[in-house]
């Protein structure tokens, strides 16, 4: 079974449709599937719902799809760095569903694991609990949250072998494994595709069973908040 494609556009061929639900990996601008997002922009697919922790910045990440009005709804935990997002949200053009960050991650993981719902104490007694079933276990209240199953997952990893076994790098792993798990189809972009047998089987972060299509490409990997210290003061 061939998983490796030549470009992001080819890897998404036949998978995109208006009104679809996409789960995307990444935290801030770290570990985002920047090549696949660019290809979705070029495809012009509309009315998209994204489950993604953040919404990028104005000209990078999911932000580029907000500029072209391709996004109908975001399911996110934090959307603070994007002026165009705020403009569309405040004018009612864009729907927003806030999820606590851990709840969003677990909704993806659970959906990918065949678990349609789970109880969590996160958000009990807050607006997040409104309209949700509450159940008491051993004296503590928990709310019911639903697993997410997306039409498509788009994910960024560091390395893959041609069977789709993935290795991530440092904190760029973040939402990528749970996002990958929850899609009916998962397309992954990596910095390097290596031959089968060159990754240590004990060091695979996400097995290739979750990965359907794969591309290699050059990534900008933009830094959102460059913070440093002086050598003198260290």
């Amino acid at each position, binding site marked *: 079974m061939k998983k490796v494609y030549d470009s992001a556009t080819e890897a998404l061929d036949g998978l995109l449709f208006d009104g679809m639900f996409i789960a995307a990996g990444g935290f801030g601008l*770290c570990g985002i599937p920047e090549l696949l997002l660019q290809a979705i922009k070029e495809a012009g697919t509309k009315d998209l719902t994204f489950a993604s922790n953040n919404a990028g910045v104005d000209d990078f990440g999911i932000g580029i799809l907000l500029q072209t009005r391709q996004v109908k709804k975001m399911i996110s935990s934090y959307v603070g760095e994007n002026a165009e997002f705020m403009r569309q949200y405040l004018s009612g053009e864009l729907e927003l569903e806030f999820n606590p960050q851990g709840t969003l991650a677990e909704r993806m993981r659970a959906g990918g694991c065949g678990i349609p719902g789970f109880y969590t104490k996160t958000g009990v*007694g807050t607006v997040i609990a409104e309209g949700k079933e509450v159940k008491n276990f051993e004296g503590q209240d928990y709310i019911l949250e639903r697993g997410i199953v997306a039409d498509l997952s788009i994910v960024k990893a560091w390395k893959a072998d041609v069977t789709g076994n993935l290795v991530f790098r440092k904190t760029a792993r973040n939402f990528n494994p749970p996002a990958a798990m929850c899609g009916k189809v998962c397309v992954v972009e990596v910095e390097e595709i290596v031959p089968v047998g060159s990754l240590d089987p004990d060091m695979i972060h996400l097995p290739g069973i979750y990965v359907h299509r794969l591309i290699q490409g050059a990534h900008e990997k933009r830094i959102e908040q460059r913070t440093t210290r002086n050598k003198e003061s260290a």
Partner: protein
Amino acid sequence: MAWDRNQMAARAAQELQDGMYVNLGIGIPTLVANYVGDKDITLQSENGMLGMGPFPFEGEEDSDLINAGKQTITELPRTAYFDSATSFGMIRGGKIAAAILGAMEVAENGDLANWMIPGKLVKGMGGAMDLVAGVGRVIVVMDHTSKHGESKVLKECTLPLTGKGVVDRIITNMGVLDVVPGGLKIIECAEGVTEDELRAATQATIV
């Protein structure tokens, strides 16, 4: 007369004990890392890292290595990386000993509000709701009063909650208070602050 940001951070660092795994929020809580001294503390960053190191030297920034505030950071010999579901598994599962967080309001029953002001720009709760629901001990570091001099230590929160009955200890520029049955208990007054001044600046019931 009262503590400044760094003195509040230094006081909060006294709450940490050798061997603890701790999550620090954005703002004054981040400064706590500067005051842990010789204690063996492992910092968690909820985007998927245990063993968070200091900011990198200029030219050594790595776009794959950031903290939950999206700032470039470094790793330590003890560092471990993991995905977001695993990260919040350890938070929700009570494996993180303590979280030190900022607040807009805190109430005498331990309610915490620190994520939204209705009518103002809402950025989102990030991981704050998961942290306050899950970690062993929630320590809030905040200014005691607003710019207009109104108490932020209240009988009841007026803003939408981040968590209900979740706060254990409050460290402000005026002192340290614990959430106990019936209200708040004064643990300590800041340098130059009298107990009467602390009581006068506090709307919450002091027991």
